[in-house]
């Protein structure tokens, strides 16, 4: 399935958000959104991915 991950097109096997994080090696503290909607970590395993979904995986970063 083809999705857009952090702005980049990507071919993935995962069908849920939890599986996607594992597949892409995101093991640390991250926050997720699918199609511009926040997905809390508790709902990731039930979040089914569809073709063309836009997934954002964000992590702590420097800020002012």
């Amino acid at each position: 399935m083809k999705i857009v991950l952090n702005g980049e097109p990507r071919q993935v096997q995962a069908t849920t958000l939890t599986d996607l994080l594992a597949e892409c090696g995101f093991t640390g503290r991250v926050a997720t959104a699918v199609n511009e909607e926040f997905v809390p970590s508790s709902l990731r395993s039930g979040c089914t991915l569809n073709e063309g979904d836009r997934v954002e995986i964000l992590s702590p970063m420097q800020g002012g």
Partner: protein
Amino acid sequence: MKTFYGTELPNPLMLGTAQYPSPAILERAFRDSGAGVATVSLRRESGAGQAFWQMIRDLGALILPNTAGCHTVKEAVTTAHMAREVFDTKWVKLELIGHTDSLQPDVFQLVETARILTEDGFQVFPYTTDDLIVGERLLGAGCEVLMPWGAPIGSGRGLNNTYALRAMRAEFPEVPLVIDAGVGLPSHAAQAMELGYDAVLLNTAVARAGDPAAMARAMMLAIQAGQLAHQADPIEARDMAEPSTPVIGKAFLS
């Protein structure tokens, strides 16, 4: 001392974590200044996020995540939710940027977003202008802190409109007020505290200085001096001279 949503700040310096020459220098700036609050953000995971998070936690400062770069209500609300989960705090520095060049806040969307986030249980620190009515609306939307700009973000121009900032202090005597953005020099930070502001939030002035750790410490000293001066009830400026040495008793020698 005023509290920020029930939390007393260790000291009035809120320091940004962006733009430092290296993580080690960022760490030293915090350690040498003792800044009580660290502002942070969320960006696409590129591998560096986890080490950064570990370092920030070790600083022991209170964490204030921002919504920097957000231009719409929806974007800011989603970012705030993501930040709450990642940083495990209800605090959010709400930035709603209205203009790309000046980074001036879009105060209309700011008020709307502040209301939504407050209803969602957030404790909102709004980056706003020095407009009193906007301040009033933000308080009405549930904000218990206001953060007016001194000057545009990163400009280093200091307090552009001390008249307005003084009026804001007078209008909202019980509200914790923070000068956020525009500070370039310790004298600007001292001036903010002399006006009776409760804290100063700055980033670029320290991070882009030749010696960020030394500048961070200079900012803290200036903030403490300004705070002490405010508490000491400074004199009013006057137009004419007034001799400080007693006139009575002066020898007649001419």
